[in-house]
């Protein structure tokens, strides 16, 4: 089952990933096929596991003390642009071009 153009576009918007060409899309298809093998296992009535630690306590609780911060200069060192100790960003999210507008999209797919 092929991944539709709409789904690919949706994924690119959500994850800011560029599938670029048919080879990238093919790789995606293969990855989905690989993951789909999980469906071969019957998991009816089984609670999904998201931690091998299960119910054993191990989420460390930190005391409410101030131990970090005050490193403005260091943090701003990485910023390409800054204004008086603020990070600078574009006025809003710059939208990806819409599906219809992208000529190079899926060339040769």
């Amino acid at each position, binding site marked *: 089952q092929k991944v539709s153009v709409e789904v690919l576009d*949706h994924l690119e*918007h*959500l*994850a*800011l990933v560029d599938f670029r060409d048919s080879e990238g899309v093919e790789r995606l298809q293969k990855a989905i096929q690989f993951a789909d093998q999980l469906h071969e296992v019957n998991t009816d009535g089984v609670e999904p596991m*998201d*931690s091998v*630690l299960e*119910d054993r*306590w*191990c*989420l*460390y*609780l*930190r*005391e*409410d*003390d*101030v*131990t*970090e*911060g*005050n*490193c*403005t200069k260091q*943090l*701003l060192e*990485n910023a390409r642009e800054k*204004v*008086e*100790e*603020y*990070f*600078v*960003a*574009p*006025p*809003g*999210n710059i*939208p990806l071009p819409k599906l219809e507008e992208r000529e190079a999209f899926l060339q040769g797919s």
Partner: protein
Amino acid sequence: LAPWIPVVGLEIHAQISSNSKLFSGSQVQFAAPPNSLVSFFDASLPGTLPVLNRRCVEAAVMTGLALNCSINKKSLFDRKHYFYADLPAGYQITQQRVPIAVNGSLSYSLCIDNKMSQMVTKTVRIKQIQLEQDSGKSLHDDSRCQTLVDLNRAGVGLMEVVMEPDMCCGEEAAAAVRELQLILQTLGSSQAVMAEGQLRVDANVSVHHPGEPYGVRTEVKNINSIRFLAKAVDYEIQRQIEELENGGTILNETRAFDSKLGCTVPMRDKEGKQDYRFMPEPNLPPLILYDAKSLPANMNHQQVINIDWIHERLPDLPSVKREKLVEQYGILPEHSFTLLNEDGLAEFFESVVKQTQMKPKRVIGWILNDVLSYLKQHSLTVKESPVSSFVLADLLNLLEKKEISSTAAKQVLAELWKGEGKTPLDIVKEQKLELLQDQKELEQICQAVIDGHENEVIMMVLG
């Protein structure tokens, strides 16, 4: 025309009152130099990990218990993904699958027809309370076409309280939020000052005809005070009714409340529904809470949160405080509401009662009518009152002992507001307001008046 039923639900974000952030050790403080309260984790630098702040968990448990919720002994953290400049990680850590508390309720009171004497109690269901991170702050500089980002707020702990759509108008929404605010402040889990962004409210509004399914709802944001909450909700209800009666449709959109214009306007350009791609937060195991029964034997106390221990130490909630005031002092329920509604007023009242022989039922009149109205007129808090409880009690004692009249007492109080350090007795003497108790002296004065007005007396005697 068929009647409309408005439906109002609320999503409230309360900033947790803690020294440090939810997952990092940077400080929580309002109005600090930009990006000075930011750790490497808050800035989402690679190689950093979240470490849960115990105090934030306790705050959420307290709040859950105060709102009659079931506390989930096992709750989970998730990532909610979206792109925005003030969310450096590209996702927010929240509790989407299993939050810390569920299925609670909040009771609040309303005055019918604005008459304080007729109060009715309503309840709103609390769907859940979840722990989550706050985002940073974006300052939009339209002139230079850029956004300035301050991450001081990024990572501060929030409790999101979700209220089911059990409310039907702005007044109910406002009353519910006010009561929640008082509860949070009493618990100390959040200072809940809306003006400082510690309490943010989003309203979900829809309308439908009786018997029909719920209508399309809109989300209203940018509400900065409880007063504006009532206005925003009522405006949106009206807007939707008018739109539908004119044959239009309601879009499932987010709208912002414009306080200057008193209306809601479309906000985000949502390209279809947002897909947040929730996934479990891989860096945080489940949060396990205990109670007296399940308390593990050999464990470091610092690593254990006991729900029952917290329950036992909850302070009296506003509703309980009000009942106690009514029972102890014989005041009316609506009086107790006013006392609790003003920070420090209940304590002021109780302090005066302790220091005077005047009955609480009489004292309350002075507190609510004279003291409170003066403070309101001059925009003063109880703490800033030029007249202390000691001074007021002193004055009321003079009145109680019948050394001055009620009118004179009001006159003295007016003078006391100047805060010149005079005692009530000083002012009474200065303005000669003492009530004459001596029978003989009174007779002499009356006789003098009669003697001085012979003609009038004759006229009166003749009828």
